[in-house]
C-alpha cells in the first residue's frame, strides 16, 4: 500500500463510522432533526463523554 492508500483507508474508516452513527441515531431518535443528529454524531466521533 502507498501512503495515499493507507490514508484513504483510514479516512474511509471515519466516513463509515460517521455514516453508521447517523443511521443508528436517526433510527433510534426519529424525533431528532438532521442538525440534532449531526451534533450527536460529531460529539461521539470526537470522543466526548456525555
Amino acid at each position, binding site marked *: 500500500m*502507498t*501512503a*495515499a492508500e*493507507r*490514508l*484513504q*483507508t*483510514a*479516512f474511509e*474508516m*471515519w*466516513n463509515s*463510522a*460517521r455514516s453508521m452513527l447517523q443511521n443508528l441515531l436517526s433510527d433510534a431518535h426519529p424525533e431528532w432533526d438532521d442538525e440534532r443528529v*449531526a*451534533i450527536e*454524531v*460529531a*460529539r*461521539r*466521533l*470526537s*470522543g466526548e463523554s456525555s
Partner: protein
Amino acid sequence: MNQAELLERLANTLEELGIPYLVTGSVATIAYGEPRFTNDIDVVVKMFSHQVPAFCAAFPADDFYISPDAVEEAIDRNSQFNILHPTSGLKIDVMVAEDTEFNHSRFSRAKSLKIAPSREVSFASPEDVIIKKLVSFHDGGSDKHLRDIRGVLAVLGDDIDREYIERWVNVFGLLQEWSAVVAN
C-alpha cells in the same frame, strides 16, 4: 466535510501563506504505518503574528471554530491551538514550533507525501514522528502511541534510521520507552 478535505484545506492555507509545516501524529503514522480510526489532524508550524488574520480567515466562523486570540497566544508561547469543525467533530491540533535543535532537525528532514494522485503534503519524517510519539507516551499518553510506532516499524522495517531515533532517545531520556517498543 471529511478528513481528506480538511487536510487539503489546511495544507492549501499554509502553503498559500508561506507557513512551513509538518503533518505529524496519528495521520503521519497512518501514512507510514497502519491505517486506524482517527478524528484529529496534528500539524507543526512555523508561524508569525502577521499571518494570523489571513490564516484565521481561511477557516470562516460559519463552518469552523478558531480563536485568533488563542492563535496569538500559541505563537507567543510556542504552544498549541485548535481548529474545530463542529458539524463533523473533526479537529486540527496546531503546534507552533519552538526554536529548538529538534525542530530544526525535523523541519530539515520533512518528507513530501502524496495524499491523493495530484496532491502532495509535507509530513514529518517517520523517525521524527516516532520520536514525538515516544515523548507523548513518556508524558503519560496512551498505549495507542506505542501501537502506532510498532505499525510504522512493521511497515518500514530497515528503511527506518534507528541511529537517528536513538540519538534523540538519549537526548529526551526515552530509553525505557524505546526499549519497550523494539523488544516487541
